[in-house]
């Protein structure tokens, strides 16, 4: 009897040591695929078919997550060509655009995905609001969502400084002047944020670290909790009427 290569791999001791469940297409195995995988277990094991329909959620959360994925994966190669120093940062940005193979594609991909992520995240929030999906038992996930929006906006803003062009410089001058208006501690926060009194190389380095390490890690943790809570709170909630119609 000829055994296909795929099934020989799936039957091997190495494969079975990684994936414990069998290969037969039973409902139990299908559940185990989700249960026993670190990355999939944040998802519900079973979902209703209608909740997957586009008009149910408009896939807005998923599109936001896809944007985040593009930004994570596309941001890393950009880091290989970027020095957070003056005036090298601006030159590196130009080099990415005009010299590095596919550099302009990666940079533009990062830029457009960032714009899209902010836009779609806001639409996602509107969708959740109008579908009244923020109400118990999902009230805590709404809070996580607000923190995610904050992380998204901060990522967007810290990324704005990195090209070190006129737009960046004045964007950050304006933004950090807004910070200064916070009562009592505004001046202090601005000093810590900029690493000085003026928008300088220190500020560029601090924004770089925030953009590439601190905020992405925060976003990853929050996204994990957010998706996992969707499962724990009983799956996605679409239009309120749709739920009631199907009740027996």
């Amino acid at each position, binding site marked *: 009897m000829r055994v296909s290569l795929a099934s020989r791999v799936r039957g091997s001791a190495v494969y079975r040591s990684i994936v414990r469940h069998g290969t037969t297409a039973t409902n139990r195995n299908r559940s185990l695929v989700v249960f026993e995988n670190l990355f999939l277990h944040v998802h519900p094991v079973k979902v209703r078919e209608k909740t997957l329909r586009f008009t149910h959620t408009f896939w807005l959360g998923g599109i936001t997550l896809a944007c985040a994925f593009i930004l994570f994966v596309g941001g890393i190669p950009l880091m290989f060509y970027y020095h957070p120093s003056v005036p090298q940062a601006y030159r590196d940005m130009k080099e990415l655009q005009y010299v590095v193979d596919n550099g302009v594609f990666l940079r533009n991909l990062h830029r457009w995905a960032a714009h899209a992520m902010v836009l779609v995240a806001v639409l996602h929030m509107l969708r959740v609001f109008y579908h009244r999906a923020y109400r118990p038992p999902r009230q805590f996930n709404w809070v996580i969502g607000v923190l995610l929006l904050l992380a998204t906006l901060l990522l967007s803003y810290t990324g704005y400084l990195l090209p070190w062009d006129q737009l960046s410089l*004045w964007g950050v001058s304006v933004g950090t002047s807004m910070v200064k208006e916070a009562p009592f501690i505004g001046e202090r926060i601005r000093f810590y944020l900029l*690493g*000085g009194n003026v928008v300088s190389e220190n500020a560029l380095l601090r924004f770089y670290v925030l953009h590439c390490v601190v905020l992405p890690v925060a976003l990853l943790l929050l996204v994990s909790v957010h998706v996992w809570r969707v499962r724990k709170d009983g799956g996605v909630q679409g239009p309120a009427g749709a739920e009631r119609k199907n009740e027996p």
Partner: protein
Amino acid sequence: MPDEESRDGETESISRRDVVVRLGVGACALAAAGSAAVTLDFLEPKVLFEPQTTFVAGAPLDFADGTVRFNREQKAYVIGTAGGVYALSAVCTHLGCITRFRSEQRMIACPCHGSQFDLEGNVVHGPAPRSLPWLEVSENASGSLVVETRVIVPQGKLFRV
């Protein structure tokens, strides 16, 4: 041990385990607070390589009535009047952009959001919420005017020449 519990009816008894747990939690909280304080201190730069905050504007006689000089690096105007000389911050009080002196209209304008100021720093047109601050002008040993951009003086305080 019911005896121990009833010894003082008002306060609830604390077991040895509770004491040890609270000590442990307290020690961890103390260590966390200490780490936070040290981290915050670490993040505060102790030496800054920023442009000097003082600059020599020139000899007092260079500033005849109506002279306006813009120092790009120090973001300040030095203005001569009949009564004396004063210095004006060029940083817009709205959101920190650098304003420009428009010589043909004799006023100061901000390119970012359109704020306008007169030559004494008063807001002529918003969105700037406050007038431009006046900066300290003094004289150094060789008789030149020195402006200190970190020291704000009351509006109208001229340096008499």
